[in-house]
């Protein structure tokens, strides 16, 4: 009996870990691709928030209009909102060469404020939170013991682990575009001299990254919650910023970091519901503290992308 209980507990924990890690995988891979091109996109927190809002608002409107693919319309709209923010970030940091961290924070403030403004505009000030019928969970292994419940997940979770991470890795390390992207992030002058279009490459990296970030946000509103609330992202973007450094700018290590944090998060949630009185905030602070400690330990050997935070101008 005890054995059965602990198996159920473990299976549930693993399933929850995959679910919690999903938006972090989207965000972390997106940020890795952006930073490898030499741009720190601190807009991530706001872009995830905007993706969650725009995805939800579009889906809710489409659902109300009786469209069958309303969730896909929502996801598409979220991606477009991410691309628009990438364009703005590109205009500021690539074309105008402005300070990346202030621009990124500005994007976060702007995207957050626009989402809250839009939410009031679309849904008014009703006391009941609007909701939609979210994406269903897939059950590829049916009722099989252990793997059945573990792999009862949303489509976007499968996409995150089976598409986003491998394709992100392949894009960075096995394609010409990835080589160009990394060289632009390491040494834009040399890349430019070799005939690579630095500006276009950086815009593309920002676009891919922001589309992923926005989809990660939309996963929360369209799949795991089926609703939108002001606390929906709650610092997940900043967790991704930490994970990117922890993963030393690698998508696969980023996924492992996301799983690790997802596991800790799922565990504290479960222990809390079981009535353990633990200061769960300490566990939630771990990704930040571990990242800062990792930076301190690596010290001068931290392998930042060479052109990190540096705008590029042709003189």
């Amino acid at each position: 009996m005890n054995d059965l209980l602990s198996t159920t507990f473990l299976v549930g924990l693993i399933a929850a870990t995959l679910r919690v890690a999903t938006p972090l995988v989207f965000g972390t891979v997106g940020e890795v691709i952006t930073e490898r091109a030499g741009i720190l996109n601190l807009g991530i927190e706001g872009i995830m928030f905007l993706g969650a809002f725009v995805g939800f608002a579009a889906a809710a409107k489409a659902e109300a209009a009786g469209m069958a693919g309303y969730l896909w319309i929502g996801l598409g709209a979220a991606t477009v909102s991410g691309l628009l923010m990438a364009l703005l970030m590109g205009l500021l940091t690539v074309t105008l060469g402005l300070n990346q961290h202030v621009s990124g924070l500005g994007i976060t403030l702007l995207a957050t404020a626009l989402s809250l403004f839009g939410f009031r505009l679309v849904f008014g000030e009703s006391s009941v939170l609007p909701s939609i019928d979210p994406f269903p969970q897939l059950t590829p292994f049916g009722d099989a013991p252990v793997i059945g419940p573990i792999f009862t997940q949303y489509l976007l979770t499968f996409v995150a682990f089976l598409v986003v991470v491998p394709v992100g890795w392949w894009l960075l390390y096995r394609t010409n575009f990835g080589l160009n992207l990394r060289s632009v992030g390491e040494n834009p002058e040399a890349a430019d001299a070799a005939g690579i279009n630095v500006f276009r490459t950086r815009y593309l990296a920002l676009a891919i990254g922001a589309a992923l970030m926005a989809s990660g946000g939309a996963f929360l509103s369209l799949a795991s919650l089926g609703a939108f609330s002001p606390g929906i992202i709650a610092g997940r973007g900043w967790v991704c910023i930490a994970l990117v450094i922890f993963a030393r700018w690698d998508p696969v290590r980023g996924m492992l970091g996301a799983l690790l944090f997802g596991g800790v998060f799922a565990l504290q949630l479960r222990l809390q519901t079981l009535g353990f009185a633990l200061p769960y905030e300490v566990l939630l602070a771990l990704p930040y503290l571990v990242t800062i400690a990792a930076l301190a330990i690596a010290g001068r050997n931290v392998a930042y992308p060479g052109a990190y935070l540096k705008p590029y101008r042709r003189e």
Partner: protein
Amino acid sequence: MGLKFERNPAPVWFRPLIPLLAIVLTFAITTTLVLLVNANPLQAYYYFLVEPLSSRVSVIEVLVKSTPLLLTGAAVTFAFVGGFWNIGAEGQLLAGATAATAIGLQMDGVSPLLALPLMIIGGFAAGMAWVLIPALMRVKLAIDEVVTTLLLNSVALLGVSALLNGPWRDPVSQWPQSPEIAASAMFPKLIPRSRLHLGFILAIIIIVVMWFVLSRTAFGLRMRAVGMSPHAARFAGIKVEQTLLISALVSGGIAGLAGVSEVAGIHFHLIDAISGGNGYTGIIVATLGGLNPWGAGLAALFIGVIDTGSQSVSRALGVPVYLGDVILATLLLVTLAMLLLQRYRIRWVRQP
């Protein structure tokens, strides 16, 4: 085809106009949102910019709203001038607020003459402590401070939440808010029956002292030199590390004072919404103020007007109150872009 940047400093008379132009441009851009809710833009601007200054009560409210912004804006300005990219004013504010609460809870029966200085010193020290690790990592290990200061904001928020859900949870209401601080630790009111408190005077003193230090002392000169070019500063024999460390620590301390001022002047207990993003808004204040103490002061007052105005726009015209936040974020990005004109002439060229 592309933009070409030619180094060409703008004439001196043009520089103070840049923030004003940025404000005009920002309002032009955000007018689209006002039209979206079918409100009259001119009316909206009246409620945003004139209404908050039209009565004694609302002017006082503007000053109340500006108080934490004056402090966080000053904190960010000081760090940025010194070349330390402190994105962590939010966390330092929370650290200061926590220290102020901890001290304030112990001040029963203590004279305000002792309690108030203790609160101020404690909050300043807590803000300094919160920036100490990123500052040391930057100075000793050359690790970029942007991410470390940013991540510590989240840690500070979780720390406050842990305190409010744990030892400081209100035993009566079970709300996540600390017990009230002792009366002797509360900042005195500047005007009876208003919310304006000692924190405003404190903020003004900080701004004046900062102006003096930055523009009238040898240390200020060294700080600005390090901020412009650490290499050149080192070559000139300036102790770059020491100067950076002082810029960072003082900045953190001032941000901590913003937390003290909100606890001791407004709320009288710690809540997790004690900051409400004032640390991040400090970055807007510093940018709009052109990294100048007086500029930051004016910017903080202006943002206080917008903050107060967004509530009256919302009440009068039904425009969502978040329009104020959209305007501020747009203002940050527009100002940042327009500051380029200070140093460059930008031309559109066909052939790069």
